[in-house]
């Protein structure tokens, strides 16, 4: 049986999850690249915290592993690596979006509502916190939207990573224990490798196109 | 099957001998109506004999098709004639073919005639062939419809059977379908025999010739055969019209008296028809070539109406 839900842990998790969502919205608004990376790092930190809380509250030691991995990978390594990349390729700091901020906010709001609608029938299955699952789905959807809305390659990578955060949050929220450890570790390394591959590509694109604007990648069509 | 050899011979002779007479009669009457004296009724016989005696010039471009054509025209017209009941209801060759074979045989003659027109490399011949084939093609459906009307009523395509069936109690000329079919057939007759308003048999003006244009290179006995064949064809079609639609007086039994009576009736009917043709020819002007289809489409409509009316009544 599941261990009894600790009230305060649940509240804490909900709070942390909500902050993750807020940070996600901040990402949508934020136009500075480095700042974006740091917001992402913070968000990942919150994720690690949630994992730690879960591990503590539910006596699931191996969730600590997830927390540590997240901390090492998504809070420290990837942001560092991405910032280095940003410095290396000397990208302009401005990022132009397709949709202006108010409209983007509206869309994000709608997505959050949708996420709640989708998550509602299954909230009963959540092991912790209210609406953590909804937040996870919202994170994923907004991350997706972010990806569509931004022109710079590196922001798209970042958006992908926030989606990944959403997935991890869902994994923790839904399954309590997280998934089998092999899978967790595998997923983690895959993500890291993915980002590095992306980085290589970003670098090459920057070299070849003298720009980071992916909307200029439109030679292949039909 | 028993071949009635005397009847066969008699009808062949009748066809051969009567055909020029009919042509002569029409020419003569036409002249009379136009206030001319005109040629004698017997003139076509003399023409044929004269042509037969004459020397021939054959185009150096012509091939064997040109030489074969007169025979084909002559023989097909004659064979077609043997399928049509003339004096008795039993045509000698009726077993070998009925209305459809008759149409086919005439078409075969025309096919070769048109080829013969093209053969000597003259522009006139080509023109004549082209027009002849066109007009006959659009006359064909009307003719078929008219034939179908009577064939359906008789339940046979065999001309003798059609005539016999019309002897029966159900037949009456006043039947609208018969009247309409007759009208259609009459128009087709004008077209098929090259009469005004479709073609002018007397013209040799380049632009108006149809039938004559094809014959332009023929001379001597070949011309004789073709002309004779043409007049046989005319006789065949007219007796067809006469006997299918007015099957009166056909010899019922094989007595000389009945035959005589039959012959008399045939001649009378042909004379009447010839009169009608002459009347039409005299009172109308020749149509422009591209007007002819209008006339033939009238014939086609008449044929259709005839069919519809068999259905209605």
């Amino acid at each position: 049986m599941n261990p009894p839900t600790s009230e305060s842990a649940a509240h804490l998790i909900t709070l942390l999850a909500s902050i993750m969502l807020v940070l996600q919205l901040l990402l949508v608004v934020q136009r500075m690249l480095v700042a974006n990376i740091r917001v992402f790092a913070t968000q990942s930190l919150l994720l690690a915290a949630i994992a730690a809380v879960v591990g503590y509250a539910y006596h699931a030691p191996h969730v600590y592993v997830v927390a540590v991995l997240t901390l090492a990978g998504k809070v420290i390594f990837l942001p560092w690596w991405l910032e280095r990349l940003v410095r290396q390729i000397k990208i302009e700091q401005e990022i132009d979006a397709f949709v202006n901020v108010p409209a983007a906010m509206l869309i994000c709001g709608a997505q959050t509502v949708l996420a709640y609608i989708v998550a509602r029938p299954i909230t009963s299955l959540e092991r912790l916190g209210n609406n953590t699952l909804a937040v996870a789905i919202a994170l994923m959807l907004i991350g997706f939207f972010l990806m569509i809305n931004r022109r710079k390659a590196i922001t798209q990578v970042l958006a992908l990573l926030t989606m990944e955060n959403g997935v991890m949050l869902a994994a923790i929220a839904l399954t309590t224990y997280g998934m089998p450890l092999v899978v967790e570790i595998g997923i983690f390394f895959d993500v890291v490798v993915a980002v590095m591959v992306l980085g290589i590509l970003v670098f090459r694109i920057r070299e070849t196109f003298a720009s980071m604007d992916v909307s200029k990648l439109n030679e292949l069509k039909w | 099957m028993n071949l009635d050899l005397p009847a066969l011979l008699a009808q062949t002779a009748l066809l051969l001998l009567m055909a020029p007479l009919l042509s002569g009669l029409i020419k003569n009457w036409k002249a009379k109506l136009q206030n001319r004296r005109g040629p004698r009724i017997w003139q076509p016989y003399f023409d044929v004999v004269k042509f037969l005696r004459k020397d021939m010039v054959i185009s150096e471009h012509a091939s064997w098709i040109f030489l074969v054509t007169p025979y084909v025209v002559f023989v097909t017209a004659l064979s077609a004639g043997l399928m049509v009941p003339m004096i008795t209801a039993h045509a000698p060759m009726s077993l070998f073919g009925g209305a459809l074979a008759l149409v086919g045989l005439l078409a075969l003659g025309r096919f070769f005639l048109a080829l013969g027109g093209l053969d000597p490399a003259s522009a006139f011949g080509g023109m004549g062939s082209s027009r002849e084939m066109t007009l006959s093609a659009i006359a064909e459906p009307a003719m078929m419809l008219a034939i179908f009307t009577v064939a359906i009523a008789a339940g046979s395509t065999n001309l003798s059977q059609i005539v016999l069936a019309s002897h029966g109690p159900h037949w009456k000329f006043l039947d609208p379908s018969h009247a309409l079919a007759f009208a259609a057939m009459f128009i087709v007759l004008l077209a098929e025999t090259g009469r005004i308003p479709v073609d002018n048999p007397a013209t040799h003006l380049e632009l108006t010739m149809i039938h004559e244009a094809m014959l332009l290179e023929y001379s001597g006995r070949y011309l004789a055969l073709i002309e004779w064949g043409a007049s046989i064809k005319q006789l065949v079609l007219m007796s067809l019209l006469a006997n299918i639609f007015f099957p009166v007086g056909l010899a019922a039994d094989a007595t000389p008296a009945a035959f005589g009576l039959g012959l008399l009736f045939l001649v009378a009917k042909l004379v009447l028809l010839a009169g009608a043709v002459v009347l039409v020819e005299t009172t109308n002007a020749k149509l422009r070539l591209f007007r002819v289809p209008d006339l033939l489409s009238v014939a086609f409509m008449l044929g259709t109406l005839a069919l519809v009316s068999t259905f209605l009544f």
Partner: protein
Amino acid sequence: MLLISILCVPFVVGLLCLFARPHALMEALNIAGFASVLILGVKLFKTVLTNNGNAVTQWNEFLRADALSAWMVLLIAIVSLATSLYAVRYFRRDLANGTVTERGFREYYVLTPLFATGMLLVVLANNLGVMWIAVEATALSSVLLVALYNRKTSLEAAWKYVMLGGVGLVLALFGTIFTYAAAIGKTGGEMPSFNWSRLLAMAPQLDHHLITLAFIFVLVGYGTKAGLAPMHTWLPDAHSEAPSPTSAMLSGVSLKIAIYALVRFHILVTACLHSSFSSNLLIGFGLFSMLLAGPFILVQQNLKRMLAYSSLEHVGLIFVAVGMNAPLTVFGALLHMGYHALTKPVLFFAAGNIQQRFHTLDFQRIGSGLVRTMPVTALLLGLATVAVSGLPPFGLFVSELTVLAGSFTSNYAWASVVILISLIVVFCGVLNKMAGLLLGPSNGAHARETISLSNIAAMSLPLGTLLVFTVWLPDCLRQLMELAGNIIRGLP
């Protein structure tokens, strides 16, 4: 041991190539590696058959091979082998031209075995999470292959491939987690297994809402990898810009791996929901893919892009066939997977020859009359075109007709009309383009092609296999496919 060795052989080959110096050694390693995978694959398939259809498992069911997996292993092996044969000549020539750098050359020979390893792991892994990881691994290894030429366009293609693929995979991961979550609390307190076989065994107890949600995410996610419209947009770019051997792998098997993953979920969902929810979705997306492929092929200007769209159409057909869930359609789908895997590489190989000769893939710039300038390539390309258009004497005719016939035994007879229409439209486009390419006067200036024996062998091997298996389908293969079909249809 068998399963592990199947996985290890290509993996080790990849690692060895990292350190091997001589070109010939790398090539030989690749060929030998894939040849042994093929042999092992045949062995696996025999084992599965002798096991009476029971799955071969290893490492406490971590690796599991049932008939479906065995079938996929065979496909992967044969396509990889043909590709490695073809690659020899291709990359030597590229290297001589300077089209590809020494580093790129090595990259290819290292990454391709890893790519294959990933695909093999997908089909052999029992754990759905591991399966996801493996799919991700195939994506990552192939991205660099797509970008191998380092041209502007190939970078663009790689970027689109990795971004769209990445998004797809995140969604697929979401779905995978939901699937796992659906099992929690149904196992009586134990931690539920993430193994597909276990999940299937307890399928009816799984949470319906979560499974529905999971399938949606998995469908969009793996559907992106499988090239289901409208998530297929990366496909023509990646397939056309990759080096031809990679295109062949991508089109020949990589797509089918994603199909495989999706089908595993489809089996689970159907077993759980007892409804045609997933079937309907598969059919809907499959038909849409088929219909969408047509217009693009009709007005296509690039040879390899046309081939890619043709793959889109075939993927759609496979999905529709699986979705219809009748014995014949599923059998036809498996058959189709096999035949298509044997056909597409040949087309891409031929396209590779053409590209190396004319340095373009644009139909207009290649011109016409390939039968004169490149007779051997043209002949093989022509035969493969006939095959891919679904005409006898090649197998795709049989498989397509099987699917169509099967649709009339299911409730989806109407779908066959759509299938036929799209097949005809695609055929019109392919025929028009190919006739213009192959036939006609040649523009003279070119000398006759020089073509090596290995090139011919690489191209005739799949085509010959296809022809052999069309006129003679061994009983054992048929049994294997029937077993696999039963698995897909959720029968014991």
